[in-house]
């Protein structure tokens, strides 16, 4: 009995050292050597100024920008220090109310738009930090963005195309558009990783 307890404590200490200390330290060391940009948050810089992460979305509400998906983070959208989804169930009246309000905002910003509303543009993502929207959600917004900026639709569509990721080996996951990538390019901000 006493022997078992002593062994348990010693084994826990040794295994804590190996798996809880050595392992994360070694992985951190190798990661920082081999993949420094990715290991530190894939931060995008304009000159010396960090302007975002290529993996984390930002909120947009101006008509001249492509809008991201709704975000459930508090106390403001796309708070990357407190990720969360809405956790609203499909039958929850609060979900229907939120979606209704989002549709109204979208319609109000672009009254002439007769396209059906893309689902991802009115539903919150799981993390509240989704950097991407669907190709359909981008196409829905391109006329508004082009009109506000006074440029040709084709010009905005071209930028969207450059920021579109195809599905993995052509089949896994939908094609998706990185919103921050589009908006930085539209503002002619050149970034480097």
């Amino acid at each position: 009995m006493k022997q078992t307890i002593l062994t348990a404590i010693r084994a826990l200490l040794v295994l804590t050292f190996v798996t809880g200390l050595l392992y994360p330290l070694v992985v951190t060391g190798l990661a920082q050597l081999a993949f420094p940009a990715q290991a530190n948050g894939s931060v995008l810089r304009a000159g010396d100024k960090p302007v975002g992460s290529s993996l984390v979305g930002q909120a947009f509400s101006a008509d001249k920008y492509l809008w991201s998906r709704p975000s459930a983070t508090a106390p403001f959208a796309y708070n990357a220090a407190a990720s969360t989804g809405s956790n609203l169930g499909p039958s929850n009246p609060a979900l229907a109310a939120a979606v209704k309000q989002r549709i109204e905002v979208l319609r109000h910003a672009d009254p002439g738009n007769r396209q059906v509303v893309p689902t991802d543009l009115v539903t919150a993502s799981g993390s509240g930090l989704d950097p991407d929207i669907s190709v359909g959600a981008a196409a829905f917004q391109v006329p508004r963005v082009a009109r506000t900026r006074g440029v040709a639709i084709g010009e905005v569509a071209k930028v969207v195309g450059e920021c579109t990721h195809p599905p993995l080996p052509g089949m896994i996951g939908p094609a998706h558009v990185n919103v921050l990538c589009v908006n930085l390019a539209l503002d002619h901000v050149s970034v480097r990783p």
Partner: protein
Amino acid sequence: MNPVAILECGLYLVLLLALAWPLGAYMARVYTGESKWADRVLGPIERFVYKLSGVKPDVQMNWKQYAGAVLAFHVFGFLAVYALQRLQGFLPLNPAGLPGVPPEVAWNTAVSFATNTNWQAYGGETTMSHLTQMLALTTQNFVSAAAGMAVLVALIRGLTGRQVADVGNFWVDLTRSTLHILLPLSVVLALLLVSHGVVQTFAGSVSVHLLEPVTAADGKTVTEQVLALGPAASQVAIKQLGTNGGGFFNANSAHPFENPDGFSNLLQMLSLLLIPVALCFTFGRMVGQPKQGVALLMAMFVIFVPLLALTVASEHQANPVLTALGVDPAMGNWEGKEMRFGITSSAIWATATTAASNGSVNAMHDSFMPLGGLGPMWLMQLGEIVFGGVGSGLYGMLVYAFIAVFGAGLMVGRTPEYLGKKIEAFEMKMASLVILLPSASVLIGTAIACSIPAGTQPLGNPGAHGFSEILYAFSSGSNNNGSAFGGLTVNGLFYSTAIGIVMLIGRFWVIVPVLALAGSLARKKIVPPGAGTLPTHTPLFVALLAGTILLVGALTFIPALALGPIVEHLALH
């Protein structure tokens, strides 16, 4: 289901089997001490660990000594996790300056990680310091998984032993599972994940300038985005491989820094079922009849594939409430899902993470369609044996195999046998304990929570869906899964305490009877198969086994499921 979704599901299962087969063979060699590669490279470290821990690797244990070692190890593991959380405010590696974790959450988390559940009553980036994440949580991710594998190996020794008392040495099985299997796989996976953007740093956060300022709830203008960082990749790798599931960040693998793209998602989905599937091959090799392991695996697939299809098909359906508001009916259910993974990958993940007792999520299950949430919920309620936790899934499955041969034996009036071992009254008593207690704690826990304000106040959704949140919570805790219908606020006193208790029941009320089974089986002689022996590697047995599991699972849980997801489904349509 559309053809692309079917193709994606098929590709996933094929890749999974292709990776699990060689790993299963390797693990069998590790446990029988025949792996030369492992011995040459990791042997010196292994012997050093024994020396420092005072372990004599040649000493054999009977089942009671083995169970004593398992329990002692977990008690101190629990105490360490609890203490580190409470004291983190005074300890280093706390760049965000987080205070000590409140006692009820610290208790819940300590139980959760020591039982391989990884139920999270907290948000990682806002609660746990880097030191706690590493020393407490990452360590338990390894050792709780390794302990599950050790108990399985003890049960296999019970099945193969010939009239012996010993079932192995827990410290050796624990150390080998950690050093030879979990650690090398985790290092490789962690680095692959970092290469795609999973963060791995000791910095607390980095601030970036927003392109367009946003207004906070209190009216203040926010011009900077604070990106929470940390040593995430090392924890994400073992959370998947060890069927732990506890995320570094609150949003778990939906967070872009835990799961940045389609490739990292595929890797994590494969690794969360990899070891449970591979252990079926390990089992076949260790008992000297590979077909026996394949039969158990087939029974798992027979249950898994239809529930996978149900979940994927449900999530590709549009929410009729949103369709009525003018939302595109062709896109499926996107609330709580990430665009880069898509509907199919989110639904495959949900099914795989609940089939395994993993519990990590890449989409919010609470926002799934009612039947999309039913599939994952029922997979947990079946006892986490369809793949299940590393080790724990297969030992649970073996218990069901004993029940299946017992049922068949009753029908033809013969003493039932499994792999030549007679299954008698003692074995059936232990098997009944393994199945009854976790099921009872799901239903009784749910009933209590439904009838007191402390149980219903924290609900995030009204009506039938609220009931589903409670049922899901107790199913997840009692079966050591750890995923949640996250709308339920679970850091209060009632849920922290109650879920903590059912997690303990779900883990140790199973482990102790399983080790007793191992001890009892080891003492029996192996009877050569005769004309009246039921072969346990045939399609007939696969059907019998799957049927037994589904029958028990349906009789126990369909009434409760009818009150939650089924009512909600009918109300929505």
